[in-house]
Each structure stands twice: as structure tokens, then as C-alpha cells.
């Protein structure tokens, strides 16, 4: 009897500890095995490898761009869900809701600003991430498929941002979407139909607003999340971030500030993780434990992203122009900035600028990893062996940036060339 009471009493006494233990299965790790087990048994941490190559931790190697993109997506999801509580996808109410957000909803301004600026930033960081992957040759086998997923993610990001652009239902939104969907209308054969399906009408109106809303808050984020999951999974299965063929004893530790403990006892990672693609075992000398090295780096990037978005959002308000007036288009009517390169091209030739050239560019991006398969120059920026490929891609990037800059700053009424100075 007293034993039973004792044990029950013990349960009561140990209740807090037991709860904590049931959630955090491992104590804060102090041994290598502990570090491995922590990474391995925690749902959120198991996405990461147990050990991570020093190269991958070097800030100058990845610049954290992929991670920043992901965190921006998280910020967008959180702020987006909060905004959904206030938004009504109706042409008569949407703009009023924007004004509400700006003037009377608690934290409305900052929410909207964060959502807007994070969205713009995400388009930029995803593109920069793609550039990073190209310039470091990280798309080569076995990572071809992940490059494809990445291209898809880039398109999904553009689409998400584009569909969100319409929702405030102000002049900026209306005419940007009018221009954007007109570009889609130039596609051969299916252009007209595509435009009609997108808008649900001949012009941008209530149907378009509803469609864009559903795409923006349900369809695209779901697809995007799925693709992000596959993207991350493939990183692991393809053996982590791309690195040079043979480890070159690079002095990376100081830069990354990684904590290195001398292993007290050697054990094989394969003992914990099995699978055909795991390659980390051979490179133990060049790797460090994810806990804490990778986690701290990730936390840093997360906080940096939040701080950046928050500061920008506090200082700069997201634009909101007059309510939609279909009779008075602004002159010039401009698409969102990331499509201004396209619009600039369209001003020369509707089909080639809007569909032909972008289509070819996209096709080249898709085919790239299947035709550029050499192993040279993988894992380092602007490798000498890849000078041709890198130069071509650089030209592609610069050309697009120049077109966007021209479209953004140098085009005035009637798309005439004007000087912003």
C-alpha cells in the first residue's frame, strides 16, 4: 500500500520532469553520440544531417540564400494567415479592408508591410539562390533533379507573388495584373484560353480576384510547401550541399566559427543512418556536428531575416494607391518589378518578348543539368574550369537585371525612355 502511494507520489513529484523528458528525449548533448542522437531523434532536427561539411557552413559559400528564402516563406505564411482574418476577396470590399488594415486594425500596417516586403524579398532571394547554385556548379549530377525542383520553386514564388499583387484591389494591383495577364495572352495557341482561365472573364474583375485569392492562399502555398519538402529531402539524399570532389583541407573552421570537439570514441555514422545515398561517412575529417554548429548558423539566419523584414517594414509602408478605376489607367501601367524585364521585352515584340525568349530561357534552365554533367569546378564559386558556363549565365543574369532596371526606372508615359535623374 505504502509502496503504491509512494510510487504515485513519485509520479506526481516527477510530473514536470516527465513531461519535459517526453518532449525532449535527449538531454542537452555533451558527447558526440548525444549530438548525433539529438539531431536524429528530434522531428524538427532530423531534417538536418547529423554531421555537416565545413564547406556548407561557410557563410561566403551559400550566403544562406536558400535558408533566407525558406524563412521568408515562413514569415509570409504566418503574416499571410493573420491577414486572411481581415481580408475579403470581393471587389467592393477588398480595398476598404486595406484601408482598415492601414488605419484601424491592431498591427495591421506592420503585418501588411511585412507580408509585402517579405514577398518582394523572397522573389529576389530565390533568384539569387539560383544564381549561387549555378555559379558554384551545384546543379551537376546527382543534383540535376533538385535543380529542376528549384526552377519550379522559382516559378511558384513568382506566381505566388504575382497572384498576391492583385489582392489589395488598388490601381497598382489592377493594372499590374492587367499587364501581366496580357503577357500570358500572347502565348501561342493557348494564350487566349490561358488568360481566360486565369481571369475567369475577359477583363480583370471579381472572378479574377477570387481566382487569384484561392491560388494565392491555398493552391500555390500548398504546392510550394510540397516542393520545398522535396527540395530539402533531395539535398539530404544527394549528400548534402555540393562540395569539391576531393577535400582540399580548406581552412574554413575559423570563418564558420564552428565548435570542434575531439571525438572521445570513434563510431560510424552508418551505425545510425542507413541508406544508399548517404556519403558523409567518408568525409568525417571535413565535417562537424550539426548540433550546435549548423543550428546556430540557422538560428542566426532566421533572426537576421526577421530583423531585416521587421526593420524595413517599420520604416517603409507598402504602397496602396487609389481604388481601382477601370476608366483611368495610369500611364505607364507597369507590372510588378520582377516582371518589368518581361514587359520591357514585350515592348519590342509581344510574342518573342513575352513568350518566346522567356520560354527558351526556361527550357535552357530545365535542360541545363542534363547536358552540363562534367564534375569539374563543383563546389566553388566561379571555378576556373567553368568559365564558359558561368560567363553565359552571368550574361543572362545581367541582361535580365538591366531589362528590369530599364523597365523600372527608365520608362515613362507611353513607355517612352525617360531619365530618372
Amino acid at each position, binding site marked *: 500500500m505504502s509502496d503504491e502511494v509512494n510510487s504515485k507520489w513519485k509520479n506526481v513529484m516527477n510530473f514536470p520532469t516527465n513531461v519535459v523528458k517526453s518532449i525532449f528525449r535527449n538531454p542537452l548533448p555533451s558527447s558526440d553520440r548525444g549530438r548525433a542522437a539529438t539531431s536524429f531523434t528530434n522531428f524538427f532536427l532530423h531534417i538536418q544531417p547529423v554531421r555537416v561539411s565545413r564547406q556548407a557552413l561557410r557563410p561566403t559559400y551559400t550566403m544562406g540564400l536558400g535558408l533566407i528564402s525558406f524563412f521568408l516563406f515562413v514569415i509570409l505564411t504566418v503574416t499571410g494567415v493573420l491577414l486572411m482574418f481581415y481580408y475579403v476577396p470581393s471587389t467592393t470590399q477588398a480595398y476598404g479592408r486595406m484601408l482598415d488594415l492601414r488605419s484601424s486594425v491592431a498591427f495591421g500596417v506592420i503585418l501588411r508591410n511585412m507580408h509585402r516586403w517579405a514577398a518582394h524579398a523572397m522573389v529576389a532571394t530565390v533568384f539569387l539562390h539560383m544564381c549561387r547554385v549555378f555559379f558554384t556548379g551545384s546543379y551537376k549530377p546527382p543534383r540535376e533533379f533538385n535543380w529542376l525542383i528549384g526552377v519550379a520553386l522559382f516559378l511558384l514564388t513568382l506566381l505566388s507573388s504575382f497572384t498576391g499583387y492583385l489582392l489589395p484591389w488598388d490601381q497598382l494591383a489592377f493594372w499590374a495584373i492587367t499587364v501581366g495577364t496580357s503577357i500570358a495572352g500572347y502565348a501561342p495557341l493557348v494564350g487566349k484560353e490561358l488568360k481566360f482561365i486565369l481571369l475567369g472573364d475577359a477583363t480583370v474583375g471579381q472572378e479574377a480576384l477570387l481566382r487569384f485569392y484561392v491560388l494565392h492562399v491555398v493552391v500555390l502555398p500548398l504546392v510550394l510547401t510540397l516542393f520545398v519538402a522535396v527540395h530539402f529531402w533531395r539535398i539530404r539524399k544527394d549528400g548534402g550541399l555540393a562540395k569539391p570532389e576531393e577535400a582540399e583541407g580548406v581552412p574554413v573552421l575559423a570563418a564558420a566559427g564552428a565548435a570542434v570537439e575531439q571525438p572521445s570514441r570513434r563510431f560510424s555514422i552508418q551505425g545510425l543512418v542507413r541508406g544508399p545515398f548517404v556519403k558523409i561517412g567518408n568525409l568525417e575529417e571535413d565535417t562537424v556536428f550539426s548540433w550546435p554548429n549548423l543550428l546556430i*548558423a540557422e538560428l542566426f539566419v532566421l533572426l537576421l531575416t526577421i530583423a531585416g523584414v521587421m526593420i524595413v517594414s517599420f520604416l517603409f509602408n507598402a504602397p496602396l494607391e487609389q481604388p481601382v478605376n477601370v476608366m483611368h489607367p495610369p500611364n505607364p501601367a507597369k507590372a510588378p518589378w520582377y516582371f518589368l524585364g518581361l514587359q520591357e521585352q514585350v515592348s519590342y515584340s509581344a510574342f518573342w518578348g513575352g513568350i518566346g525568349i522567356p520560354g527558351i530561357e526556361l527550357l535552357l534552365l530545365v535542360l541545363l543539368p542534363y547536358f552540363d554533367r562534367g564534375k569539374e569546378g563543383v563546389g566553388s564559386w566561379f571555378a576556373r574550369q567553368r568559365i564558359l558556363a558561368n560567363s553565359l549565365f552571368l550574361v543572362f543574369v545581367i541582361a535580365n537585371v538591366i531589362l528590369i532596371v530599364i523597365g523600372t526606372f527608365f520608362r515613362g508615359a507611353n513607355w517612352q525612355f525617360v531619365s530618372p535623374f
Partner: protein
Amino acid sequence: MRLALAVVSLLVMIGSGVVVYDQFHSRWEDNQRAYFHQALEQAKTPAERASLEGRQPKIEQTIVTAFGETRIDRCQSCHIAVDDPRLTSAKQPLKTHPYSAAMGDVFRNGRWERRHKFSDFGCTLCHDGQGRGLDAADAHGEDPFWPSPMIGYTIQDRWSKETAGHLRGADFIQAKCVQCHADKDFAGTPLVKRGRELFFKTGCFGCHRIEGLSSGTIGPDLTEVGNERKLDYLWGHIVDPRAYTATSVMPQFKLSDDDKKALVIFLKSRRGASMSESSVDQFRMQTSTTNPVPESVAVVAAAITKASTPAARGEQLIQGYACLSCHKVADHDGGISPDLSYEGIIRDQPWLIDHFNNPRSRVPDSNMPAFGLPESDFADMAAYLMTRTAPPPAMTPAETFKTLCARCHGEKGDGKGINAIYIDPAPRDLTKAEFMTTKPETRFLTSIDQGVPGTSMPPWDKVLTDEQIKGVFDYISKNIVREPQKQLKPRKVPEQNPVPMSAESAQRGQAIFTQRCIGCHGRKADGRGPNSLDISPRPRNLRNSAFIHNTPDRRLTESILYGVEGTAMPSWMDYGLTQSDVGDIVNYIRSLNTTGK
């Protein structure tokens, strides 16, 4: 690494703190506390005092459902004392809203009772602004894109400084009273009434439609202009119509600032249906087949005295309808439209009546509206104009040019006279030697003598003698063109179109036209192609029947084959068009102009 981590963590924390502070520190709470404090000082009874002491700041809002769309007005969150008579001499935002017997407020039993209770009407129904805003800048509508800033109070950043100076004052609120008090003689809105009179008196109604008031079609419909435009646009557009729309043909009327203000208030009051109209009233108005008799007819008819002759009555009508706010007769000059001083010898009665009924039947691109006045008025006005038969006194050619030609062609002859921008086709630029020296002298003499049909160039043959006309032309050649006539190489141009007129020929002509000509002359051949705005002189409107009928085949063919010197029309022979191609094009052009031969 850890330092960096600490720094960004700190950044996030500070950022959150600033955001939260910014969110929850509200000026309106300070205002309310200040109000409680001031009211407490003036409170007399203990009950008053007790009620004030217990109060905490909270958002005060009125939900107005009785007037159109539901409005949520939170203005009283700051302007909390609007209904508290103790604070009549306080400073804004804590001042009592003035009581006014004129607005129907009643002083009863020692206290005022409002006619327009804030609980019924809210604030923005009369004042505009943004009712939901809790921040002064938001609420007053200072945001440059807010469509209805507080009327007569808020000046938005984008408004031009000189315009904004005119747009302050309580008078502008009259534009809002009219939403309910739509009766045109309502005593509370004298400026709306005056603006409405001006709308008819200065001829606005001729071009602009306002549902139930006027039916002009040349300018934009102004039925809902009060919803669409802010004060600065209305004022600015009246002051200089081309400041906002470079191609506007609206005349720049000479109005006093008071008149402009009245017009702006009247226009601002045009918001489609007023609150006092039911949808049935609206429907009746829209489907009514009787053209609403312009109020100006009534206004003018009441103003003119009994006249003995039609001509005398016509003179009064021309004054009353404000024809001279555009046209010129003797010393009265609106500075916008042609001089009518010699109309009696330039035109005949049928021409005038035709032109009154529809100016475009005579000058297809005229910007003069068909005012739709009663026929008897038109007849009398024509009768008066027909009395203007005295030719100008004998003058030197230079004086003649200055008196008769410079109004359109400009003192320097550069085609930039005071009314040139209102005339389409534009007056010829006589300084363009390339054009002037390559056309035969007879063509110019004929144009002066007979006028150019379909354009504003009138026939001067009855006003000037042949010697005077020759004298003016010589003056132009010597002092304006300043280059001798050129001898052109003989050109092979048929007198008559060699291709007989037929549907097939016109069709072939249309095909070539669509290929070569529409860039300037436009798809409809009306001279308004996409390039037309960049070209001077503008491309010819080939649907101007009066002009085309009067232009022989020879000239059309020559202009196409050899081009027109001094204009953008190129020599199409150089681009491979043959005589028979040009014949087809001429036939196509002729086929567009089948009426009014």
C-alpha cells in the same frame, strides 16, 4: 558567431518593442484624457464631475446606415467634444461643433438641439475624409491616394501649391449638402446654384453630359464627376484643361476665381443619384425620351427683354448664351473661336442654321458643340449674324493679315494663333517654306478667296477685294515665307483618276491603305493613327467629306504619288506604289465619303 547571434536577437527584440509601442501609443487617447481634464474643470454639478471621473479612453464610433453605404465614423475618438457645449472656445480637436440656426439647429430650453445629429449622420457624410482612421493623417485623408480628403480642409501632398490655396474653406461643404438637398433652389447651397447657372451660362452644357441636365457628347460625362475627381483636379482642369490631358480641346475659359470656385463646388456635387432620389426616379430620368430642356434656355429667356426684330433678339441671345465667351464679335472676344464680325458676308443663313444645328455637318472636326437650343433662337441668332455685313475698313495688307488672319494663323504666320489649338484641321503654318514654295500660287489664292470647305478657313471673297487678297498673299510670301516660289520638275499626274470607281477597286485600295497608311491616317482613315500626335501638320482626316469632295483627283493623286512637301506625307512612288495603286486608294477614299456631295 555568438556575438552576431546576440546582436540580431537584440535587433529583433528592439524591433518588436518599437512595433508594439507604436501600435498601442495612440494620440486619440491623449486627446480624450485632455478632454476629460478640461471638461472636469468646467463641470459644475457633482453628477457631471462623477460621470467624467469614471471615464476611460475608448474608441468612439458612429455607424451610419441610413445614407447609402454603411459608414463607420470614428472621428469622435479625437473630436470627442463635438456635442459638448462646454468646449465652444477650446482648441481643435477638442472644440464643440458650431451650432447653426441656418442648418436647422434649434435653441430650446437653454440648450441647442441639432437638426443633423451626429448619431444619425456621422461626420464623413458631410465632411468627407476617412471615418475609420484613428490617426489624424489617415482620418483627414492626407494620403495622396485617398479619394475623398476632408472637403475644404485637407490639402493632399500632390496638389499643386497655387491650386491648393483656393481649395480651403467651409463653402466647399455645400457640394456635400446637395447629396440630400438636391433641390436646385435650396437656400443653403447658393454656390452650387451659382455653379449650376455658370454651367449653362458659359456653355459647359454644350459639350458635357450630366444626367437630367444636359446631353453634350464632345467632352466627358460629368454625371459622377464629384465621385471621380478631387477638388484640385476640377480646379486645375478649369484653369488649364491641357495641364492634365495634353490633347484636350476644352477651351480655357476666362473666369473669375469666384466663378471657378462656384463651378468646382457644383461639379463636386455631381455624384450620380442624390440621396433624395429613389431608383425609380433614376430610372425615369434615364429612360425619359424628352431631351431635358437646358436650364440655360429658361435662364436666358427670363433675362432678355422684349425685342422688336428677330435680329435684335438674336443679339441678346448671343450675349445671353455666352457665345462670346468663345467667339469674337467686334470688341467682345472670348479668344477661343473664330471671329464672327463679318459673318453676314462670309456665310449665308442656311449655312448658319445648319451649323447651329450641327457644327460638324459643315466642319467635321469642329469642337463647337451642337447646343440643341430652340430653333426659333437659332433663327434669331442667325438673323443677327446676317446683319454683320459691314466689311472692314480699307487696310494695308499687313493690317489685314493682323486683323483677319492672325487670329488663327498667328501674328508670325506660324499657325499658332490664339485659337489655333481649338481648330481641326489646324491652321496652316505659313512659315513652312518647303510647303509654301512648292504649291502653285493659284491654290493659295483660291483657298483665301473661296475658303477651304470642311475646315475653319472661311471664304474671304466678299470681305476682301481681289486686289486685297493678292496683297495679303504677296505680304505672306514676302514677309512670312521669305523664299521665292520653286520651279518643280514637271510631274506625271493624271487630271482624272484613271481607275474607274468600282467596289473591287475600292477594296484593293483599302488593302493598300491598311498596309501603308493607317500608321498616320488611322484604321478609320480619320487622321488619328497612332503616329498622328507626333506629326505636324496632323495627317488629313480622309472622312472629312466636305474637304474630300472639294479636292480634285489630281491633287489627291499627286499628294500620294509625290508626297506633300513640308509635311510628313512621303512620296509613295518611291515606295513602289504605281498610278493604278494610287487610283485604287483614291477610289477607296472617295468610297468613304458618299454623303453631302
